[in-house]
């Protein structure tokens, strides 16, 4: 396979990581909403933890984007 073609394929494959990170972020927020609707009084106190979980799940999708950008523009 041509090296350039392999790079672009790799960049496209990295988009799978972004999609899976979307699943992760959705899972974080859905679990939070599930809990928050059961006990709305406790929801506000957990927003910090919600965003820590969001940030951790999102980071992997962002890393996938970085890999795609490195493959397209740097490597």
């Amino acid at each position, binding site marked *: 396979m041509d090296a350039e073609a392999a790079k672009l394929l790799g960049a496209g494959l990295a988009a799978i990581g972004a999609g899976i990170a979307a699943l992760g972020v959705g899972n974080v927020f859905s679990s939070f909403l599930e809990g928050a609707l059961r006990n709305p009084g406790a929801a506000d106190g957990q927003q910090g933890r919600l965003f820590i979980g969001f940030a951790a799940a999102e*980071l992997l999708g962002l890393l996938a984007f970085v890999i795609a950008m490195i493959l397209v*523009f740097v490597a």
Partner: protein
Amino acid sequence: MAESGKIDPMHQFAIEPLFGTDHLSIGGFNIAFTNSALYMVAAAVVLWIFVIGGMKRELVPGRWQMAVEYFTGFIKNLLISNVGEGGKKYIPYVFSLFMFILLANLLGLLPLGLVGVHPFTFTSHFTATGVLAIMSFSIVLIVGFWKHGLHFFSLFVPHGTPLPMIPVIFPIELISFMVRPFSLGLRLFVAMTAGHVLLKVLAGFVINSSNAGPGFGLTVGAASFVLMIGISALEVLVAVIQAYVFALLTSVYINDAENLH
């Protein structure tokens, strides 16, 4: 990368010297005043005006003072809930950090292209966010070693770790600690870069499909334009969330330095 007739979504991140300072240098290092520096100054000046305007210390606060007090109170609550009472001394740092990143993200989203100025988001560069992350990380290291001395290393051995597990746990915790400045800076930089690239790609769809004829313009172009408006609203949300996440993670890391765990 860009061919003729194509929209280059990466061009918006190009750093250009302004006001004829291309060859300004100190000790061999180029210190040209770039568009990145211009937007950093703009963010600092807007933040400065915002805070000065709210520091009248009136007994019955007006709208402006309420706005400033809302943000300082927000950061104060963030630090107290994450660090405890000892976190109050970090309010100036975390407040400046949060507001600076927030204003940088929002200034980069301003529709200044309408009047011919190209807005620049300096938080979409790892050099800028990396320095902010290193600042936060340095505070954690300095405070940690200052307060706890070499006892700070107990951060890498969680309570109740069985003795045979320590050689395994210690490197893992150490690596997860050392990776923090990278993940902190990388998150902000990539979130802003990805959003701006997405906006420019969609803008390219609108322009190219409209040029291809009214049929393409009305189907592809109009749909892309509606999507672009939605994504723009999402980008404002992302700008706020990423600034909040940066401040939140900084306060979580400061908690480690302040209280160990």
